[in-house]
């Protein structure tokens, strides 16, 4: 076990705080590189410890899994930093760096207290990223923060209880017999976008700026996937949570009109796949969850960059207002399609070699129903993200929008990520070699490729046959957040106008009763009352003497 003085996450946080002072935005690109060099130089097993009172905090503890997640976080930070060079909002870039630095610190943390501290910094800084978007970001940001502070409180209850009952601070596989494990689990799941709180993703992310959404897409949910892998691998309950998220994401994305909201629902869907894999919990499933997180971060950022470019150039985000951009934004279209093919797991893209591991895990465990559900969902992913996004934005009708491809830095970031999607898909060995367990699985068999192509192409056929049923409308879809956005408001209003008055009269009558009681007490026991007034010392002495005399007589004759 070696020790280190430099922490890749905390350094990034410090860098992030200095960003508002930096004039040349190219310098910002050096920060993720610096953090990468530090991380790269540290061997697995390196730790940084800190004595805090009676506790020994483990600020950093590197293994294969935490290294994998830190690498992908840094990679996507670097790409998004290029993409956002022309983003004028310094608060967004600065808070995004602190946000990513704390995500990496969560992933590298070795104990529950360190984890919690950085978990909360993530919640606050990501809210600032959302608020940096526009005036309309204010309320979604408040709702986002409320959900995450609730999640954080539940997590804190869990951690305090867990540490007190087990006496251990270390973060590893959580004991299923300890009730507080489930509080911690609930806290983690809220950040993963699990029901009933999934709506914070499509509510908050699309209200950030064109670059802010890209920053947000990668870290909170994937940090949650990481902590679930470490703490809850093999918890079968997670399979059901994941399946719910998968189909929720597909169905709500089909009904959605805003392209960035479509892609946000699709995050819930993809994280659902990872959570199913965590629930299965075998070595190949954990490899599936972690490689899927890795590739998903890349292609989802790419898709959101493509959508972000369209938003940046045209100022529009609704499918009903878009269409026909293939002529004016060809590069954005091609990069968007590469992202769309990757998320759909087309052969030769990164999605194919990562999601297959999870599907294969169900085969090894002989989980037939789960396999059928995941295969259906794979078809559904192509339907809701793979074709729907490019079709409605770049083809469909000609919306006659004046447009052009975005500035050079944005194009460069998209090309970089597109290249990665294909390279990882063509050469899976590189990614497989950094997964937590050895991979003995070959994705490219004739059998597997032909099955996947059949599945996807016939899903495509279904899309075009059903096109008239998929036509977008100017609507939103209600979610669980209705309970606090509408029902909660109704309850408060009802309380305000009706109940409050009732309660006021009730309080008034209690008040009156109280006043009367006190008045009568005052009359009898007050300074001049019969029972309360003070007596002179002589009287007191006399009465005491009489009482003692009576007592003496009583004692003598009894």
């Amino acid at each position: 076990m070696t020790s280190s003085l430099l922490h890749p996450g905390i350094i990034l946080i410090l860098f992030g705080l200095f960003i508002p002072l930096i004039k040349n935005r190219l310098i910002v690109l050096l920060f993720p590189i610096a953090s990468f060099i530090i991380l790269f130089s540290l061997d697995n097993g390196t730790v940084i410890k800190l004595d805090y009172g009676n506790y020994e905090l483990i600020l950093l503890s590197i293994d294969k899994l935490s290294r994998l997640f830190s690498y992908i976080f840094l990679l996507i930070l670097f790409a998004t930093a290029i993409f956002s060079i022309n983003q004028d909002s310094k608060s967004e870039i600065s808070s995004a760096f602190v946000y990513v630095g704390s995500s990496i610190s969560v992933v590298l943390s070795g104990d529950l207290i360190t984890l919690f501290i950085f978990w909360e910094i993530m919640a606050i800084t990501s809210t600032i990223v959302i608020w940096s978007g526009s005036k309309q970001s204010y309320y979604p940001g408040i709702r986002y923060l409320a959900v995450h502070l609730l999640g954080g409180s539940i997590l804190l209850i869990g951690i305090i209880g867990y540490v007190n009952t087990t006496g251990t601070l270390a973060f590893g596989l959580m004991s299923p017999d300890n009730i507080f494990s489930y509080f911690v689990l609930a806290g983690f799941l809220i950040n993963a976008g699990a029901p009933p709180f999934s709506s914070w993703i499509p509510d908050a992310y699309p209200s950030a700026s064109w670059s802010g959404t890209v920053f947000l897409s990668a870290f909170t949910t994937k940090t949650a996937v990481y902590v679930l892998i470490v703490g809850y691998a093999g918890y079968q309950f997670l399979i059901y949570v994941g399946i719910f998220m998968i189909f929720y994401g597909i169905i709500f994305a089909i009904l959605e009109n805003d392209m960035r909201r479509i892609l946000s629902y699709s995050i819930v869907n993809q994280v659902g796949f990872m959570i199913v894999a965590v629930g299965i919990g075998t070595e190949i499933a954990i490899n599936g969850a972690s490689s899927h997180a890795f590739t998903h971060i890349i292609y989802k950022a790419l898709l959101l960059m493509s959508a972000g470019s369209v938003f940046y150039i045209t100022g529009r985000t609704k499918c009903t207002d878009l269409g026909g951009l293939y002529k004016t934004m060809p590069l954005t279209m091609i990069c968007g399609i590469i992202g769309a093919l990757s998320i759909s797991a087309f052969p030769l893209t990164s999605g194919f070699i990562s999601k297959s591991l999870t599907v294969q895990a169900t085969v090894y465990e002989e989980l037939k129903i789960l396999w059928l559900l995941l295969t259906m969902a794979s078809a559904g992913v192509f339907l809701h993200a793979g074709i729907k996004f490019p079709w409605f934005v770049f083809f469909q009708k000609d919306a006659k929008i004046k447009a052009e491809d975005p500035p050079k830095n944005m194009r460069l970031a998209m090309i970089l990520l597109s290249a990665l999607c294909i390279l990882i898909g063509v050469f899976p060995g590189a990614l497989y070699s950094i997964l937590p367990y050895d991979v003995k699985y070959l994705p490219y068999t004739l059998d597997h490729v032909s099955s996947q192509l059949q599945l996807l192409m016939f899903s495509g056929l279904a899309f075009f046959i059903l096109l008239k049923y998929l036509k977008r409308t100017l609507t939103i879809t209600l979610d669980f957040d209705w309970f606090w956005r509408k029902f909660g408001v109704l309850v408060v209003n009802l309380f305000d106008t009706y109940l409050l008055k009732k309660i006021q009269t009730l309080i008034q009558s209690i008040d009156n009763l109280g006043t009367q009681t006190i008045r009568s007490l005052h009359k009898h026991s007050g300074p001049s009352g019969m029972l309360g007034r003070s007596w002179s010392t002589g009287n007191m002495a006399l009465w005491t003497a009489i009482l003692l005399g009576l007592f003496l007589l009583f004692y003598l004759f009894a």
Partner: protein
Amino acid sequence: MLNSTIKKLWISFLFILAILFFSDLVIHRHDYFGVDGFFAFPSIYGFLSCIFLVFVSKAIGIFLKRPEDYYDE
């Protein structure tokens, strides 16, 4: 896009679909659960899954869809 281009795209798309559908005659697909050994199973299952998912979302949409300004702040 020109109608003739669209027509050509459709023809090539259908051609690819046909090749994939009948590829099961040549490629031996490994079946794990029995049902997936059925001829052209991925084609049929993928197609039906999508139809199913679209109609389920349509049905859910009837109850949950609202105008955009529903939550106006």
